[in-house]
């Protein structure tokens, strides 16, 4: 079946759902030891894991997951760079089982894979770069509550199954379907832990502003997954009560000359404000747009501050006179609300310098 770009339009979705009354799996299989430790050893040796134990993707587990989404197992979702592996519902589900996902997480993983393949995201670059870049996966909309994707305290840390396994499933798909073998194809000089999993929900209910996905043209009641290639997290201890003070701290943290968005003049530097930080801004009359404008202006770096020696790597900087801009325009800075309520630590996620991708999450009819 050819890639069907319209598979998620309502009429098409119902049609393909009707076609999948019984899941028929086509993936090849192997026989492994019944002992889970030996299974882990086996799959690790084959290079199919991220170095952590996986749930064995038995036929029953994969079928159960595909049955939930009510899609044809062989429905092709995307081609994944660099290998050009064809991601199908089935092989995405196999990787989702391995990651420890529940069946109800699969629609998110499928949408994430679809987003990764959007041309502007340049998955090839993300998968093969020497940069530590990893996709930050942001979930918006009602599905957050339906499947308990956490966006509050500790959302980017351990403890939340949906966050951990959805992010991990996407990473396993990038490895097994896209072929980004660590150190061989994925040339990250060092990497960072977000390459295991890097997923959270936006705290929409705690935000005084519109949720992120509505800025991208979606309705509030749509569920979406946004993928932003990021270089890690930078915590900012911004325990202040005025917007200006908070912004000075945040702007300082963002102005790292070596982050990729400065070099590429593109991408989406991302700021995660706590609910209280957001309230401080909102009560003082600040909109997201105004925050972005301030940050864009105050993170410009004079060329004279950089080393005189020409850099080894190429660059496509966005310049404002003799000052380098953190990205192409203020509107490209992403501001979301998440984390613990108190106005202590907010976070900056430096951008790899590729534009983000966003896709609608399509839940099965009746689910």
């Amino acid at each position, binding site marked *: 079946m050819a890639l069907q770009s319209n598979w998620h339009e309502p009429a098409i979705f119902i049609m393909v759902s009707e076609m999948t009354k019984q899941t028929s799996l086509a993936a090849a*299989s*192997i026989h492994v030891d019944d002992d889970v430790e030996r*299974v882990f050893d086996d799959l690790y040796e084959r290079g199919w894991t991220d170095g952590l134990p996986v749930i064995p993707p038995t036929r029953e587990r994969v079928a159960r997951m595909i049955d939930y989404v009510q899609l044809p197992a062989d429905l092709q979702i995307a081609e994944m760079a660099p290998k050009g592996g064809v991601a199908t519902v089935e092989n995405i589900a*196999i990787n989702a089982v391995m990651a420890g996902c529940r069946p109800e997480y699969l629609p998110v993983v499928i949408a994430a894979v679809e987003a990764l393949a959007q041309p502007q995201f340049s998955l090839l670059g993300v998968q093969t770069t020497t940069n530590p870049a990893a996709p930050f996966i942001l979930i918006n909309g009602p599905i957050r509550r339906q499947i308990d994707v956490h966006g509050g305290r500790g959302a980017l840390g351990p403890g939340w199954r949906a966050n951990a396994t959805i992010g991990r499933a996407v990473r396993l798909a990038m490895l097994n*379907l896209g072929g980004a073998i660590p150190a061989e194809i994925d040339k990250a000089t060092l990497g960072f832990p977000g390459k295991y999993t890097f997923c959270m929900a936006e705290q929409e209910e705690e935000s005084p502003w519109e949720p992120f996905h509505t800025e991208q043209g979606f309705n509030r009641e749509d569920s979406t997954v946004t993928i932003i290639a990021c270089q890690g997290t930078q915590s900012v201890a911004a325990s202040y009560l005025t917007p200006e003070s908070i912004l000075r701290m945040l702007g300082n943290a963002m102005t790292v000359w070596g982050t990729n968005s400065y070099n590429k003049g593109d991408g989406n530097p991302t700021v995660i404000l706590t609910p209280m930080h957001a309230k401080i801004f909102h009560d003082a009359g600040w909109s997201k747009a105004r925050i972005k404008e301030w940050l864009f202006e105050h993170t410009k770096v004079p060329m004279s501050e950089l080393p005189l020696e020409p850099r080894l*790597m*190429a660059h*496509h900087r966005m310049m404002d006179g003799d000052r380098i801009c953190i990205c192409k325009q203020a509107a490209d800075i992403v501001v979301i609300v998440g984390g613990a309520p108190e106005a202590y630590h907010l976070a900056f996620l430096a951008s790899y310098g590729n534009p983000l991708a966003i896709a609608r999450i399509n839940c099965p009819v009746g689910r």
Partner: protein
Amino acid sequence: MEILIPIATTRAVRKMNTASLALLTGKRVGIVSNGWRSMEAMTPHLSQRLKEKYGASEISLYSVHINKPITDDTLDSIERDCDAVIVGLAN
């Protein structure tokens, strides 16, 4: 225990209709660079060698973005103006 294999197959690669070149003598050669200094330093030497040692008639240089796909316009130019192309990328 039977488990399903998590890796994907790739599409069949389209068979190339262009015959391989036995020699570069008299041929037009394109060099594609994404701007890394190493490639930019190498390109003049490569161009000179291609002409002096291998007899290339013409060398055309193409710049591509550091990590975005090559544009269709650039591909069309290469197809139109080159008999062979050397791609130098790094990231």
